[in-house]
C-alpha cells in the first residue's frame, strides 16, 4: 500500500484539491501538493484542504528527500492512542532503518540526519518507495489501522462528530480538527477520517436525492404531507418515502435534524423540523426528500432494485436537500438504505411503512422498496405503527395499509414479523390486504434478521415490489428490529413518527432518525408508543437506541454495507438523535 501521495494542483481531469480531500479522507494518507502556482491563497487552500505540504515547481530534489517526514509524522500521531512507546521502540531498535533513526530526530525537528540516513537507501528507489518499505517493515507488528479495534459509531459519538463538523463547516472540517472538537478518548484521526468520508458521501447523496425530490415535489405541489407521500407513492418508483415526507417531523430532536442533518450537513435540519414537518404539509417532503436522496443515492449505487431508490425518488421534496429530516419522515429505511444495510431496500421499506401514506400508495412505495431489501421489512412494521399512531397520518388510517396494520403496532405488532428475507418477491401482492404481520418464517429466510418484525404494511409493500426484492438481506438495517424488544419499540417508534422514515431513516444511518414523532427524547426508544406519535416526534431517542443497536449489531455482523452508504451502518439511528 501507499504511504504518501504527491499530487499536482492543476490537472485536466480532477482538481488537485478535490483529490486531496478524497485521498486524504478515504485513504488517510499524507498528501503533498505540487504546483508552479505559489500564490499565497492557493497554498492556503491546499493547507485548509488538508495537505501536508505544498511544494513549488520546479521541485528540488532536496525537498523531495524530506517528504518521508510526513509519513512518519502521521504514523506517529496515529499511533498516539496505541502504544506510543512501542512504536518508538520499533523504529529505534531496528538498525536498518536509517531513516527512522531519527524518530526522535524527526520530532525534534532535525531532519538532516534523517535525510542523510535515508539518502543512502533512497538511491535505488524513490523516496516514497523507501518510506513505504520502511514503513511496511515497521508496520508489521503494528499495521496502521488494520489491527485497531473497530470503532463503533454510536449515536452519541456520531452526534458529537456531526456537531464538530458543523462547527467547523463541512468544507473545512478536517479529521484532525474534528477529532479535537469531539474530544473522545481512544478515537483516532483515522477513525474520524473514514467516518468523515462516509459522511461526505452521504451528504452528496442527499443532495442528489434532494434535487430529485425537489423536482418531484415541485410536480406535486403543496399537498398534504401525507398526501405527499401518497403522491410519491403514486409514483411507483420510489415513491415510498416521499410520502413519508408528509411525516416530516420525524425529526427527532435532532436525530435527523440535529445529528443527522447536522452531520450530513443538511443545512436546515433543525431538530424541531421533524416536528414541524409533521404539522406542515409541505414540510414533510424535505424529510423525505433527504432520505430519498439518500436512498436514491444509495440505491443508485446499488444495482439492486433498491426500493429505497424508489423511496428516495418520490420524496422529491423541494427542500429536501437540507433536511435530513426528511428521512425522518420518509423512511428510516431510506436511511438505512443508505447504510449498508439494505441500503436501498431497507430504506424503502421503512419508508413505506413509516410513511403515513395512503395505504395504496404506501404499498406502491413499499413495493418499490421492499424489493430491495429484506431489511425493509421493518419499515412495514413501522408503517403499521404509523398507522396506529394515527394521529399523524390521517391518511394512514385510510390507507389500506393502515387498516391492515392498524393492528399491530400497539398490539404488539410483532416486530418479529418483519420479513427479513430479502426477496420481497415472496411477498405476494395479496398480502397487502392481509395483515401486515409477516409470517415469521419469512424472516429467517435471509437469515439476517433473527427476529422478525412484523411489519404488516410492509408486507404489502413488499408484495408490491416483488421484482425489487433483492437478495440482499439487508438485515443489518433491520437489525434494529431484530431484537424483539427492540422491535416493538422500534415499531412504535416508527409508527409514531408517522413516517415510515422513522425506521428507514434511522436505519439508513442517515441519522434521520425520524423515529416516531412521539418519541420522547429519552433514549429508550422502545417506549415510544404510538400514542406519542401525535406528540412531538422525538422519536429520535426511541428508536434510535433500537436502531442503534441494530445498527451496531449489523456492523458486528459484518453486514456488507454498500460503499455507497453513507456509512449509515456506522451511525446507528441513535446517532441521528
Amino acid at each position, binding site marked *: 500500500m501507499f504511504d504518501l501521495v504527491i499530487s*499536482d*494542483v*492543476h*490537472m*485536466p481531469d480532477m482538481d488537485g484539491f478535490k483529490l486531496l480531500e478524497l485521498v486524504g479522507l478515504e485513504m488517510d494518507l499524507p498528501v503533498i501538493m505540487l*504546483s*508552479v*502556482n505559489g500564490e499565497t491563497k492557493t497554498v492556503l487552500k491546499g493547507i485548509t484542504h488538508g495537505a501536508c505540504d505544498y511544494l513549488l*515547481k*520546479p*521541485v*528540488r*530534489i532536496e525537498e523531495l528527500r524530506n517528504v518521508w517526514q510526513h509519513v512518519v509524522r502521521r504514523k506517529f500521531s496515529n499511533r498516539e492512542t496505541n502504544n506510543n512507546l512501542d512504536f518508538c521502540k520499533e523504529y529505534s531498535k531496528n538498525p536498518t532503518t536509517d531513516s527512522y533513526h531519527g524518530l526522535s530526530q524527526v520530532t525534534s525537528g532535525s531532519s538532516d540526519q534523517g535525510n542523510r540516513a535515508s539518502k543512502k537507501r533512497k*538511491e535505488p528507489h524513490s523516496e516514497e518507495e523507501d518510506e513505504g518499505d520502511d514503513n511496511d517493515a515497521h508496520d508489521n507488528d503494528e499495521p496502521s489501522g488494520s489491527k485497531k479495534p473497530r470503532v463503533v459509531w454510536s449515536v452519541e459519538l456520531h452526534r458529537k462528530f456531526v456537531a464538530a463538523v458543523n462547527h467547523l463547516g463541512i468544507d473545512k472540517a478536517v479529521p484532525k480538527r474534528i477529532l479535537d472538537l469531539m474530544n473522545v478518548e481512544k478515537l483516532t484521526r483515522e477513525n474520524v477520517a473514514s467516518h468523515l468520508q462516509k459522511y461526505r458521501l452521504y451528504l452528496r447523496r442527499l443532495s442528489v436525492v434532494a434535487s430529485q425530490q425537489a423536482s418531484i415535489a415541485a410536480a406535486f405541489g403543496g399537498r398534504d404531507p401525507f398526501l405527499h407521500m401518497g403522491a410519491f407513492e403514486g409514483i411507483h418508483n420510489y415513491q415510498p418515502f416521499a410520502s413519508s415526507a408528509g411525516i416530516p417531523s420525524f425529526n427527532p430532536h435532532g436525530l435527523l435534524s440535529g445529528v443527522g442533518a447536522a452531520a450530513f450537513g443538511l443545512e436546515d435540519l433543525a431538530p424541531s423540523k421533524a416536528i414541524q414537518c409533521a404539522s406542515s404539509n409541505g414540510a414533510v417532503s424535505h424529510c423525505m426528500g433527504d432520505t430519498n436522496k439518500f436512498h436514491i443515492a444509495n440505491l443508485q449505487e446499488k444495482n439492486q432494485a433498491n426500493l429505497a431508490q424508489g423511496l428516495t425518488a418520490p420524496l422529491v421534496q423541494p427542500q429536501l436537500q437540507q433536511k435530513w429530516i426528511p428521512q425522518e419522515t420518509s423512511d428510516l429505511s431510506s436511511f438505512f438504505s443508505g447504510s449498508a444495510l439494505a441500503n436501498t431496500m431497507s430504506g424503502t421499506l421503512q419508508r413505506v411503512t413509516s410513511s403515513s401514506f395512503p395505504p395504496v400508495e404506501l404499498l406502491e412505495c413499499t413495493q418499490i422498496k421492499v424489493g430491495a431489501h429484506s431489511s425493509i421489512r421493518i419499515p412495514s412494521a413501522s408503517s403499521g405503527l404509523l398507522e396506529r399512531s394515527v394521529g399523524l397520518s390521517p391518511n394512514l388510517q385510510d390507507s389500506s395499509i393502515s387498516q391492515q396494520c392498524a393492528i399491530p403496532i400497539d398490539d404488539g405488532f410483532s416486530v418479529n414479523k418483519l420479513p427479513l428475507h430479502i426477496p420481497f418477491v415472496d411477498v405476494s401482492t395479496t398480502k397487502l390486504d392481509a395483515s401486515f404481520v409477516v409470517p415469521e418464517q419469512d424472516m429467517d429466510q435471509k437469515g439476517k434478521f433473527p427476529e422478525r418484525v412484523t411489519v404488516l404494511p410492509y408486507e404489502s409493500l413488499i408484495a408490491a415490489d416483488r421484482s425489487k426484492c433483492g437478495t440482499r438481506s439487508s438485515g443489518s438495517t433491520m437489525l434494529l428490529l431484530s431484537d424483539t424488544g427492540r422491535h416493538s419499540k422500534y415499531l412504535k417508534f416508527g409508527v409514531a413518527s408517522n413516517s415510515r422514515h422513522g425506521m428507514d431513516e434511522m436505519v439508513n444511518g442517515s441519522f434521520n432518525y425520524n423515529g416516531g414523532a412521539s418519541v420522547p427524547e429519552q433514549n429508550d426508544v422502545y417506549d415510544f408508543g404510538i400514542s406519542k406519535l401525535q406528540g412531538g416526534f422525538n422519536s429520535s431517542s426511541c428508536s434510535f437506541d433500537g436502531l442503534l443497536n441494530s445498527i451496531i449489531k449489523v456492523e458486528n455482523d459484518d453486514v456488507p454495507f454498500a460503499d455507497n452508504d453513507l456509512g449509515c451502518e456506522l451511525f446507528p439511528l441513535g446517532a441521528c438523535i
Partner: protein
Amino acid sequence: MEAKMQLNTLMANMFATGLLDDQFRQLQILHEGSSPDFITEIITLFCMEGEGIINDLAKLLNKPFVDFNKVDTLLYRLQGSSATVGAQRVKDTCIQFHKFCQDNTRYGCLDTLDVVRNDFYDLRSKFQIMVQLEQQVWTFYRKH
C-alpha cells in the same frame, strides 16, 4: 567527438539565450543517477504535452466566450511543465500570460499565446536536435 561537441555548443547556446535555466542543469544531475534516456524522455514528454496545451489554449481563446478559468488551469500546467524542465523562456511567457488571463483580456491573451507558441516551438526544435545529438553521442560511446 563531433556530436558531443555540437551538443555542448547547443546547450551552451540555450542557456545563454535564456531558453533553459538552472533547473535543466538539475535534471542533468539527476540524469546521472537515472536511466540513460532520462533527459530524452523528459524532453519528449514536455514537447508533446506542451503542444497539446498550446493547441487547447488556442481553442479556448478562439471561442466566442472565453472561459478564463480553464485557460488559467491550462496555463498552470504549461508553466509547471516548463518550470520542471527548465524551459525558462516559455515559463516566463506563461507568467505574463497569466496576467492577461486574470484581466480577462482576450486579445492580450491571444497575443501572448502567439509569443508562447513561438517560444515553445523554438525550444522544441532545439530539444529535438539535442535529443538527436544525445543519441549520436550515446551510440558513439556504446560502440567504443
